[in-house]
């Protein structure tokens, strides 16, 4: 039940007045002398007034004191206790206490939040500081790495240049290979043509040799037949020789007989001499023929052996020409094979030249990219150094922020929020 202070004062006065009235009315019935009645009444009135006044003022002062203490605590930043007033009936002090408690609650909430935020800010700034330090270190590492990359890019550029040089030389070599392959192909073609001519010639030689061989063999047979005939002539000459020999003997004996006949045999002696001369002449001629026949036979034998030799040689020549033919065929095959391979090499080198041009373009692009990379690396290096500087500044700022957050926390810690904190 709410009774305002003014009404409380009025009720108090009324209570005092009522007490005085009651006392004054009841006194005559008291077993006390009359003279005492008045002073007793006054005394009672005073007593009641004092008691009631004291009660009122004490209650009132107690509440005021509590409010004052609460204000003091609030002023000191102690937000841990609520203001408590004890009234039998609510009045304005309760309102003040309530309002103060609301203020205190708001403050407590605010300070709590500030403290929380400050703590968070401290922690965040600490971790930020740590992170910034780490990032600075990382930036330094990045800067070092970027330097290495920069040097690497230079090396890369040199290597690319060297590669390009080597590649140009290789392209020249490939061109030479292509030219050589072309020449080889041409030479192989010429070889094929020559081998073909050789094969034709060898075939012609084979035919000629075969023809000559046939003719020589025919001549050989003729020669054999000729020698046989000459031998027959020899045999006939032998017979003639024998006849001449006998004739000679007969002439000798006829001469002897004619001599024995003396004068009568003289003519016969001349005839016998003539016969002997004829026989001698025959013998000479037949000897001549025999010599001729012998010579012919000897020459025939020589011719035969020579022909056999020629036939052998021609057969050897035939075999050699056959072998030559085979060799020409092999040469043709090899040369055609070589020509095909040289053509393949030529095609391949053509592809290689195209590929080399592509690679050359690629190397040029790589060169550009490497140059761009070098430039970009320098930019990155510069940026990294700036970043390093920024990160150092950021580290400093983070440290400053941490300090400020700590100071804020110190400030906020002046407020006591919990009863335990007070203890």
């Amino acid at each position, binding site marked *: 039940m709410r009774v305002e202070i003014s009404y409380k004062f009025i009720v108090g006065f009324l209570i005092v007045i009522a007490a005085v009235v009651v006392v004054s009315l009841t006194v005559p019935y008291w077993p006390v002398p009359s003279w005492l009645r008045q002073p007793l009444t006054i005394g009672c009135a005073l007593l009641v007034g004092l008691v009631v006044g004291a009660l009122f003022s004490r209650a009132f002062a107690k509440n005021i004191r509590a409010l004052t203490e609460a204000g003091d605590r609030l002023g000191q930043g102690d937000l841990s206790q609520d203001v408590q007033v004890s009234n039998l009936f609510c009045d304005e002090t309760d309102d003040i206490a309530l309002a103060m408690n609301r203020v205190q609650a708001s403050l407590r909430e605010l300070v709590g939040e500030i403290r929380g935020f400050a703590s968070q800010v401290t922690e965040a700034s600490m971790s930020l500081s740590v992170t910034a330090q780490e990032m600075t270190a990382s930036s330094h590492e990045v800067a070092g790495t970027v330097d290495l990359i920069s040097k690497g890019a230079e090396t890369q550029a040199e290597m690319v240049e060297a590669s390009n040089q080597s590649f140009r030389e290789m392209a020249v070599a490939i061109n030479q290979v292509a030219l050589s392959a072309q020449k080889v192909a041409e030479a192989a073609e010429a070889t094929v043509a020559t081998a073909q001519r050789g094969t034709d010639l060898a075939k012609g030689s084979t035919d000629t040799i075969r023809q000559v061989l046939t003719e020589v063999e025919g001549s050989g047979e003729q020669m054999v037949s000729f020698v046989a005939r000459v031998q027959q002539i020899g045999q006939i000459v032998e017979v003639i020789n024998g006849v001449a*020999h006998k004739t000679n*003997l007969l002439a*000798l*004996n006829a*001469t*002897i007989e004619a001599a*024995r006949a003396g004068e009568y045999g003289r003519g016969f*002696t001349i005839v016998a001499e003539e016969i*002997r001369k004829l026989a*001698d002449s025959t013998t000479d001629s037949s000897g001549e023929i025999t010599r001729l026949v012998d010579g012919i036979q000897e020459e025939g034998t020589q011719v035969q052996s020579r022909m056999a030799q020629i036939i052998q040689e021609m057969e050897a020549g035939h075999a050699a020409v056959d072998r030559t033919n085979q060799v020409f065929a092999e040469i043709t095959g090899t040369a055609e094979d070589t020509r095909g391979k040289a053509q393949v090499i030529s095609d391949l080198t053509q592809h290689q030249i195209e590929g080399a041009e592509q690679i050359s373009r690629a190397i040029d692009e790589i060169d550009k990219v490497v140059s761009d990379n070098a430039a970009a690396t320098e930019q990155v290096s510069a940026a990294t150094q700036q970043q390093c500087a920024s990160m150092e500044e950021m580290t400093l700022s983070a440290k400053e922020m941490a300090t400020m957050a700590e100071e804020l926390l110190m400030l906020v810690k002046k407020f006591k929020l919990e009863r335990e904190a007070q203890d």
Partner: protein
Amino acid sequence: MTLTLIFRIGDRAYGLDIDAVQEIMESPPRYPVPKPAPFLEGAINAHGEVLPVIDLPALMDVSGAARDARLVVLAPEFRGLALLVSRVERIVPLDLERSVPDPDSDPYCQALIERDDSPPVRLLDVTTVYTQLEQLFNDNGGTLCP
């Protein structure tokens, strides 16, 4: 001029008057004789008469000489010997007046006769042949007697 049969013993030309020659026989069948002497080359049948064959080169000690297939059969008045010579050549007329001394003193050479167209010819001394044969017969104990 005397008709003379020219033959060779080794490389020397000998001559024999054809009056001393019966005939020239061409390789008649030759029959071996027992215990022959080195110069006795068997015997032949000459028209029914058996004649000894005397190897003149062997008798004259001419080594390495050829032998002709023809035999010179001597006339019966020359005791019918068949002579084996190196070669029977021919019958030529010789001028016996053109005799020259023999520088070799050949015992079988009766006379050395010069010729116009050929080297000189030694006339065979048939007597020396007989003498030699007889001496050899006697040496051999007379076992070889014609």
